[in-house]
């Protein structure tokens, strides 16, 4: 019961929020003010020594920052917005978090309760009164609307419970702005009685653990797939321990990238449309895969076309996921296990150690060594590629050379994402982040600021495209304001490259609406390519900026940006026509799937 008589008192609704955030030990509240949020902000006025208010220049950015913060710390932050456009603009960030099992508490304002169904400023009223909930419902674990102060007390601990337990996800709390101001008799609940008291890390039965080990032991070509669930469950250490114990090669999904150091001898890379050939070829040949927290998306599986990424069946899956809905969603399973990845891995480790289980699989490792050599022979020359415009691979290799081993890397969305996926070596587990599910452009550009809030001492880098950067260029201003010395490296190709590539490869090269060019006529694709001067933009916002056109200038510029401890934009002109090596495929039906451009043709 949240109401213990000794704690009941008279509180304003906004005070309940602020007091509860103190109890949750929330260090930051991020958002953007409006008339529907100032009542809330007022209650934080005297608490700024404990909870800092951070406000970037648009609501979406606030959500992206909180999302990034959660991915690193597992602490959900409140994100405050006003009514109408504010909540609407934050939907993209909420969805981005939801798809990638990240979390924050979206607090939206609303017209006052006595104005419901009047169409007061920014009220959603034409189908149901005060109905923002209908807009956000697809992207949150729960949408609450508090119409009394007591309800705020009731909903807040439930919201944090939902965000922090099981499969994380954002939660929405809507508070009409009169409720922030009116007093009600209630208590500020203690988190200890809610999320903190719940043991949600469920394992599985001993017999199931024994059966998994038996299947892995009997396999000739086993693999472990580390999906995003390994990061969510914070099971990276357990993954390494079990993989080494069982001597089973590990590969990841895009969202799982960095679950194991890329240089670990058992690590094969990423499976997917733009993944690593050793992982992909191993998947095509695996007889059993232990799947840890992966939902087998289209980009991961070659759009489920057999032979491109997987052969399921014949490959048998042992799929472990905390969300039963994701098990056997896209592929049949030989065994499905509902459980927390870390807990199940610990069970497997204990049983394997007790049994003295050590996998051999020498022949399998030998085969995989061949796959590795093929890929390495292809990749290595790009490390020293001196071509101009700059080859995107050379750029990433040079960033890696000068960035600290534990640098936090946020890619954005667009071609920069798969370039980083394929060529960024994530050496410290848990330092690669990207938006894989909802895939919102601008997430990385703003997310890197959330990373800086979470890990002020770490080098935080965002590699983005010119498209994504210009969606959220104000991130630099926010960084200057709050002294968050992030580094943005723009892969500038004067286009939204991923979509332009779809036009190049899916639509016969008919490029329209994808190049940044000056409009000079009536035909598409006839203008001069144009972008603003990103380096100059950064400088006018108080940061540093530099434009790079020669490969030899990359490393010194990145090194200087890291050393300077100033928000810095490095605008790198890359070769816009270099296609990403396609290692499986991605299909947009009815257009047929593309053949991989690396490796032997794999249509079964």
């Amino acid at each position, binding site marked *: 019961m949240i109401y213990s008589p000794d704690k009941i008192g008279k509180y304003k609704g906004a005070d309940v929020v602020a007091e509860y955030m103190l109890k949750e030990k929330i260090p930051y509240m991020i958002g953007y003010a409006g008339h529907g949020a100032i009542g809330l902000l007022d209650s934080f006025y005297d608490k700024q020594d404990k909870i800092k208010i951070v406000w970037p220049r648009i609501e979406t950015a606030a959500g992206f920052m909180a999302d990034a913060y959660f991915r690193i710390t597992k602490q959900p932050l409140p994100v405050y917005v006003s009514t109408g456009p504010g909540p609407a603009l934050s939907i993209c960030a909420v969805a981005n978090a939801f798809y990638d099992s990240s979390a924050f508490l979206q607090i939206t304002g609303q017209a006052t309760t006595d104005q419901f169904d009047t169409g007061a400023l920014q009220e959603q009223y034409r189908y149901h009164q005060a109905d923002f909930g209908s807009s956000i419902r697809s992207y949150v674990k729960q949408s609450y609307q508090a119409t009394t102060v007591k309800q705020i007390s009731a909903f807040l601990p439930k919201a944090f419970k939902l965000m922090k337990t099981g499969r994380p996800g954002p939660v929405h709390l809507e508070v009409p702005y009169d409720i922030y101001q009116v007093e009600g008799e209630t208590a500020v609940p203690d988190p200890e009685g809610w999320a903190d008291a719940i043991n949600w890390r469920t394992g599985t039965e001993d017999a199931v653990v024994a059966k998994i080990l038996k299947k892995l032991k009997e396999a000739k070509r086993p693999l472990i797939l580390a999906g995003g669930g390994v990061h969510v469950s914070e099971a990276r250490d357990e993954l390494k321990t079990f993989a080494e114990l069982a001597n089973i090669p590990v590969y990841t999904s895009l969202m799982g990238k960095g679950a194991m150091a890329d240089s670990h001898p058992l690590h094969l890379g990423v499976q997917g449309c733009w993944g690593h050939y050793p992982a992909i070829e191993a998947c095509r040949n695996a007889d059993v895969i232990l799947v840890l927290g992966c939902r087998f998306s289209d980009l991961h599986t070659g759009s489920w076309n057999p032979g491109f990424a997987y*052969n399921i069946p*014949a490959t048998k899956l042992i799929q472990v996921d905390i969300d039963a809905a994701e098990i056997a969603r896209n592929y049949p399973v030989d065994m499905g296990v509902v459980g927390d990845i870390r807990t199940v891995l610990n069970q497997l480790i204990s049983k394997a150690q007790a049994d003295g289980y050590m996998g051999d699989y020498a022949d399998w490792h030998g085969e995989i060594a061949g796959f590795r050599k093929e890929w390495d022979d292809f990749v290595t020359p790009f490390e020293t590629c001196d071509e101009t415009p700059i080859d995107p691979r050379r750029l990433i290799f040079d960033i890696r050379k000068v960035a600290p081993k534990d640098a936090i890397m946020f890619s954005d969305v667009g071609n920069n994402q798969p370039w980083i996926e394929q060529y960024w070596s994530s050496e410290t587990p848990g330092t690669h982040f990207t938006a894989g599910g909802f895939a919102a452009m601008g997430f990385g550009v703003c997310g890197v600021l959330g990373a800086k809030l979470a890990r002020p001492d770490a080098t935080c880098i965002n590699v983005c495209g010119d498209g994504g950067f210009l969606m959220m260029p104000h991130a630099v201003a926010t960084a200057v304001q709050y002294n968050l010395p992030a580094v943005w490296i723009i892969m500038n190709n004067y286009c939204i490259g991923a979509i332009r590539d779809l036009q190049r*490869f899916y639509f016969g090269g008919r490029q329209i609406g994808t190049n940044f060019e000056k409009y000079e006529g009536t035909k598409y694709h006839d203008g001069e390519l144009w972008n603003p001067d990103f380096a100059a933009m950064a400088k006018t916002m108080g940061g540093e900026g530099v434009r790079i056109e020669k490969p030899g200038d990359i490393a010194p510029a990145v090194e200087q940006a890291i050393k300077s401890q100033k928000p810095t934009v490095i605008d790198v002109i890359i070769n816009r026509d270099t296609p990403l090596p396609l290692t499986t495929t991605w299909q947009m039906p009815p257009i047929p*799937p593309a053949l991989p451009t690396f490796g032997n*043709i794999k249509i079964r």
Partner: protein
Amino acid sequence: MQRRGAASGNGAPLLHNMDIKETITSAWSDRDLYTGLSILEAMCVWSSECPGEALPEQMHDDMVKMFGLDAVQGERDLLLSTGVITLKNGGTVMDSKFYKPLSSLVNEKALCMQVFFNGIRFPIGEFMSGLGEYLVREAGATKQEQPCNDNCRLSLTWEDKAYEFRIAFSPVWLPAIADRAAENNMFVAALCPFAALQWEKTMISYYEYPSFRNHTACYDPWNNCKLNISKGGLFTYFDWYLRDAYGSKFSIPGTFSQALFDMGLLRYNDER
């Protein structure tokens, strides 16, 4: 030596079906045995699929493209002269009584074809029986008995679907079975040396048809290549059998991929 019986109604000699194998074999002694067997195989399949119906013109044309007009005409004349086939509506029809002995002849000969893996030469039949054991053991497929001990065929059920692997001299008959395979949700793979048989001129066009592309596959263990975009999941295990038993991997001819691209069934991710 040919033993001839009484004349038939259309002037061709009548033969007892027990003699026919010997007669045909003897006639092949001064011909290209491989071409003869290939054509006879195709006629047997057609006769089995559509008894009493004349061989389709397209199948005849495919045979001509694969083996040449003279060879096909020669075999046709031979079979007409022996009464194995008769003329009907401008085409040819196999007398049903010869189907069994002639298909048995084709099968016997097919099983004797030699394959070469890892420096060892051995009969394709041995390859096929190894495949059968592998599919039962590794995939959990269930082997079906062949009604007439046809060792050229390996019939299995896997995940409630029927699969058939057939050792063959050519793939020319494969289009003839595609529709039936599709109707029965069955998957048929031919194991034949298609790479040496002008397959580009004959087989590719059939990939326009969903029944053909989704339900048939061709493997060539003599030239280590394959044509397969079917939906038959068990065929993955065929690749794995090659890998596990022989350390081999079949490639997909570039011409095939290009043809699929031209048909709009596949794309290349470049600007060709």
